[in-house]
């Protein structure tokens, strides 16, 4: 049973198993364990980013392709659901239709980009995705009569997911089961399903070929695998998963805008989560996303305190200003690529061997 669920890819380290179990339980019972709107928001964000980062890891960690357009697919998912709900009112049918359309657009776009750039050489891909993603961001903000421009669009979700909705009359374990909690569990269930699916993909023969391509694409080609074909399929799969993550994000936030889905800052966050968690292991996505988002919430507060504490010293308060947290993350990113290329999960697994 467990073997089937995890596709035979166990954490292979006691510490890692412990961490993963803690994250799973924490997320599964988040509304009961951590009361308050902020905590459940963080938990939902963790779920969404686990899916997003796992899908990115499929590209970066397993296939060895660097893409800067992952937020574009995330955004397509978000806008697909968001604009649908905005235009046609809150119903489940609209959500389904929005997801389907967004999936179609995302996968076709990923296919076209792949066709254009993956044939020639993988390094093209990084540059072309960067260009395409910026063009998409600009288009999304320019066509404001459809997309809401910089402000984005707020919309309502089906009644069962609204805060006013009550599933039971009486509270369960002291918590009222309202629509928000239902929405959270929808996001959580989707995240678990998609994550297990991704595990299935990377541990299938197909996933092994992807890893072979990452290690040595010439050799994979020589063994008889069409590298272009595998890269393109991986690209479309990752894009589709990112679209779904975007849809989850839209349903949870009840808002879609460039800052929450398309911006380059989110792309950097994803890169950091993958690298810190560990490239080439999906469990890295879980650890990286959780650690990063929790840290993000507290790091800025910490930096504010540190900045205030060093008041009067030259330059130091400016370096520690909360707005400069990207600086620390950037340094952390460079250092972890150098010294820590397998990330947390790689380290933990390495020790257990």
């Amino acid at each position, binding site marked *: 049973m467990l073997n089937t669920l995890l596709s035979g890819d166990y954490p292979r380290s006691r510490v890692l198993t412990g961490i993963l179990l803690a994250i799973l339980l924490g997320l599964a019972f988040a509304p009961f364990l951590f009361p308050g709107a902020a905590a459940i928001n963080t938990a939902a964000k963790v779920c969404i980013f686990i899916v997003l980062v796992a899908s990115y890891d499929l590209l970066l960690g397993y296939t060895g392709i*660097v893409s800067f357009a992952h937020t574009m697919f995330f955004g397509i998912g978000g806008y697909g659901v968001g604009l649908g709900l905005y235009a046609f009112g809150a119903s489940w049918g609209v959500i389904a239709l929005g997801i389907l359309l967004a999936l179609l657009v995302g996968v076709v776009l990923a296919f076209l980009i792949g066709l254009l750039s993956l044939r020639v050489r993988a390094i093209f891909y*990084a540059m*072309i995705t960067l260009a395409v993603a910026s063009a998409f961001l600009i288009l999304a903000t320019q066509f404001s009569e459809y997309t809401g421009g910089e402000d984005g669009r707020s919309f309502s979700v089906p009644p069962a997911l609204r805060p006013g909705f009550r599933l039971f009359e009486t509270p369960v374990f002291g918590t009222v089961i309202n629509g928000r909690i239902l929405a959270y569990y929808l996001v959580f269930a989707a995240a678990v399903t998609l994550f297990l699916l991704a595990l299935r993909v990377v541990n299938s023969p197909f996933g092994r070929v992807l890893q072979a391509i990452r290690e040595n694409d010439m050799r994979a080609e020589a063994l008889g695998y069409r590298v272009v074909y595998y890269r393109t399929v991986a690209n479309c799969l990752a894009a589709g998963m990112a679209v779904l993550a975007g849809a989850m994000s839209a349903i949870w936030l009840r808002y879609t805008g460039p800052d929450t889905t398309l911006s380059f800052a989110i792309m950097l966050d994803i890169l950091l989560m993958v690298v810190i968690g560990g490239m080439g292991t999906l469990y890295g996505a879980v650890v990286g996303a959780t650690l990063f988002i929790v840290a993000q919430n507290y790091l800025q507060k910490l930096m504010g305190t540190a900045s205030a504490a060093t008041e009067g010293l030259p330059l130091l308060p400016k370096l520690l200003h909360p707005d*400069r947290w990207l600086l620390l993350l*950037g340094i952390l990113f*460079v250092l972890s690529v150098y010294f820590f290329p397998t990330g947390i999960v790689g380290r933990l697994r390495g020790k257990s061997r």
Partner: protein
Amino acid sequence: MTVAPAPATTPEALPAIKHDYLPILLPVALSALALPFVGNPITWVTLTVAALAMGMMIFVIASGLTLVFGLMDVLNFGHGAFIAVGAYLALSVLGLLSGWVQVDSLGWNLMALGLAVSVAMIGTGLLGWAFERVIVKPVYGQHLKQILITMGGLIVAEQLIHVIWGGDQKAMALPTALRGAVLIGDVAIEKFRILAVAVGFVVFAAMLLVLNRTRIGLLIRAGVENAEMVEALGYRIRRLFVGVFAVGSALAGLGGVMWALYRETLTAAIGGDVMVLVFIVIIIGGLGSVGGCFIGAILVAMMANYTAFLLPKVALASNILLMVAILMWRPQGLYPVAKR
């Protein structure tokens, strides 16, 4: 015993290098194609001159990047950092020399500008040298890590600019004598654009001269074709590479100064904005090719300017379409570099 006859002293003439003129016609064709859409010839000339100026600036920035890639197979995503640092250094120098900048005399203005550009280029050149040593050197030959690391370097550099110069948008005023436009017939051409075109052509000419007429240029071109062979012949390709990297960074600094003066405003994100265009340019031109980069820059700038006039909302997207079209025609770019 007879001596073998000496080999013919006049060997067959070396096969002439075939020049591929087709890509050169592209900008001409594109501008001709745009004329009926724009309609008014005067507007068209203004747009074309603006495109040339913008193209030159992009070329100055992109040339270093494409050479670095050609020579050492290093794709520097952090190139944008040099653009921004160059622009900010010039901003500081021009701020100090505000007397020279505000006086309405071309000589003093150019002197201030020249000083600012020198400081910017020296600063970014040194920064490039340090960047190569610290950031790029450990990850030679690993594309994946290169992309990630240089991207990280770009973030750190951008944030440091925030720390040093502050994060608000700065005004970058043009020197007095360079403001306004010159009237040629009915066509008004901004003075700064003329300067930008001139600088661009000088850089292009100097680059071609160095690459085609000097020993260093010969080594660089040989290195682009086959670095290992150059190394086997006893040249230190690494040292050459560091030099090219530093010069490329200095050129990015120069381009950054020009770009900031062109826009007349400056934020730390300036590098990232230009880099998107620069990437399109070097892909169109063929990675590693200076000539292709030159034509690509003009093409991209023309496309950007014409569509900004005709359909302002899709300006950047039109360049993606341009890139797609060119890659369908020549998948390796306009001038593919032999081995890669």
